């Protein structure tokens, strides 16, 4: 299991080849499928088809079964992410404090609905069950930054800032 730990701490950065080399460390290990999928997603930001084929070889399961596991768990993605991942918390505390309204504003502003990516590939929306900072509700996360005690106005301002940042990368 030491191998898992190492892989998680340092996801392979050198593309497919590097990923494959690390994969062999898992051969024959029991219950390796989910850690392998997590490693693939850490490496690519999503699980590409080629990774499914490689993992299928290692764990000896048909690709169809692996696909079944991928779609069962909400953590796994089969499509690449936008530049900014917006996680909209819809936990109970955020919900009673108006998270739906916040989600509506974001969807309106970005012209994208549900769990999808904007056409320019800039933003991906994801509704999540609970980010665990209920005392700051309503909360969203944009990549690793958390923004709490939001109002529709604050969110509009925030999105504007991110759009500007994306257009002028040198000032970011």
């Amino acid at each position, binding site marked *: *299991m030491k191998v*898992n*730990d190492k892989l*998680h*701490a340092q996801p392979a950065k050198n593309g497919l080849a590097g990923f494959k080399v690390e994969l062999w460390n898992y051969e024959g290990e*029991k*219950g*390796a*499928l*989910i*850690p392998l*999928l*997590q490693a693939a997603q850490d490496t690519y930001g999503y699980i590409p088809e080629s990774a499914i084929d490689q993992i299928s070889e290692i*764990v000896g399961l048909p690709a169809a079964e692996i696909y*079944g*596991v991928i779609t*069962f*768990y*909400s*953590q*796994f993605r089969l499509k690449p992410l936008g530049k900014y991942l917006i996680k909209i918390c*819809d*936990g*109970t*505390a955020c*919900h*009673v*404090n108006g998270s739906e*309204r916040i989600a509506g504003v974001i969807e309106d502003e970005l012209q994208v609905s549900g769990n999808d990516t904007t056409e320019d590939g800039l933003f991906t929306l994801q509704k*999540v*069950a*609970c*980010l*665990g*900072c*209920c*005392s*700051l*509700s309503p*909360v969203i996360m944009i990549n690793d930054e*958390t923004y*709490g005690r939001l109002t*529709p106005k604050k969110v509009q301002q925030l999105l504007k800032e991110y759009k500007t940042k994306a257009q002028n990368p040198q000032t970011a």
Partner: protein
Amino acid sequence: MKTIKVGLGTCGVSAGGEKVYAALKNEIAKQKIPAKLLETGCMGNCYQEVLLEIIDEQGNDYLYGNVTPEKVKRILDEQILQDKPIEEWIVKGLKAENEDTFFSKQKRIVLRNCGIIDPNSIEEYIASGGYKAIQRVLKEYTPEQVIETVLKSGLRGRGGAGFLTGIKWRFCRQAAGDKKYIICNADEGDPGAFMDRSTLESDPHSVLEGMMICAFACGSDEAYIYVRAEYPMAVRRLHHSIRKAEEKGFLGTNIFGSKMNLAIHIKEGAGAFVCGEETALIASIEGKRGMPRFRPPFPAQKGLWGKPTNINNVETFANVPWIIDNGAEAFAAMGTENSKGTKVFALAGKIARGGLVEVPMGLTINEIIYDIGGGIRDGKKFKAVQMGGPSGGCIPATMGDLQIDYQKINQTGAIMGSGGMVVLDETTCMVEMAKFFLRFTQDESCGKCTFCRIGTKRMLEILERITDGKGQEGDIELLEDLADKIRNNSICALGGTAPNPVLTTLRYFRNEYEAHIRDKKCPAHRCGPLLTFTILEDKCTGCTLCARVCPATAISGEKKQVHKIDQAVCIKCGKCFETCNFKAIIKD
């Protein structure tokens, strides 16, 4: 030298704790200030994050709340360099127990070290009395004596169902087979619950020690922690803690110089609520889709890889070292006849002082909400409290004298659950609340049992219809009928409890359902399609703001003239209501 501690649990980090920490570090280095900077976990009073504790040379401590990087310089200048506390920024904390009911009504067993020690330091855990219990167990106890002690303490599983922990351990102990597994269930999936996350982030060693004691009692040499991948900080701190414990010889072979071996692995969950169920969790560790199976055989007989397995929740394990250290009697002395010890709650929602609280069993709901939580936010009225998340229910304010006790809470139709406590006020619509939870369980149903898969979907459709103003006579009865069938025809607790939010709101707030269906009104003014927005003629100044934000161009009127909403065109989005600066728009 003074010590500065910054609360860096997820709540502290979300509120900007790392920026405060960096600002402190920077300033201390720049000015060469003689102070020791440390990090700690969650102090509990999350509503005042970022929290910063300063301990001076005499051992006096000062807790600063709502700290921002901008405040850092003044705190260092005045409190650290000139010994002048900044009274207006100081909040009451853990040590000021008698001064503030937020802490004085609490009893911290599980959270004994949270917000006090540095979670990354095994030395600090040892210095606070950690790893004594396991050493005592290894020297003085037989496995049967450990089980007897846990049984006598009356500890029940804190994951929700409340099964007696000692009995569970005995089943696993007595199961045939040499190889046995211990699993710590840290797949905290209830939306609005963060007890386990805070414990793992703030005091990971207490959970590891509890697992060691359990492994000794059950005769196991291999254990897993199944933790949500959405809790990156908890995962990081667990990896670190296990490594440190291995280096010290507390984990691995011949732990603490005894004959016992134990390896603890971490498995990251991949985001499926149903994996909180024991058999689904086991399937997930085995690398499969997390679907529950029939019991028996119970995991104690046939669990992970077909071997006897004991599964407990994070909070249950964290209680165990305390019980060994202080005796079963001390634990059993707290609480009610059926429920012993304490319970940790994540207090959130429309509460003035939200956070992580631990109370002795037997305290009343009102005591938690008013004395600890400081009552309802913004002077609103307390309506109900939601306990047990999607598997639980809403307990109305009129039952506020109810004691925290497994049986008494079950009798209301809610459940103790893992400890989410979401407070609702008069602006919360109970039908909408039930819909919210049902949407969650419907989405998380694994799809194995027909009634859970399709029945929850049908129930959700009915609730959507009701909140859309299209409810029909007979809908309530249909909901009750479906609830009954889902409950009795699902193999696991997800389906078995999924109807609870609907059933409890029907039991205590039936009139709200009826108002939606018959009068086409939402008493809490929450369900959009049932609202009517009107402009008060005497208050409208004709500023035109509402007309400009209206996406349906339903508002007309000349500048400086009273405006009007065309009800036939209005889509009831509420944007005008939110935008009006003169409170000239009302919703009904």
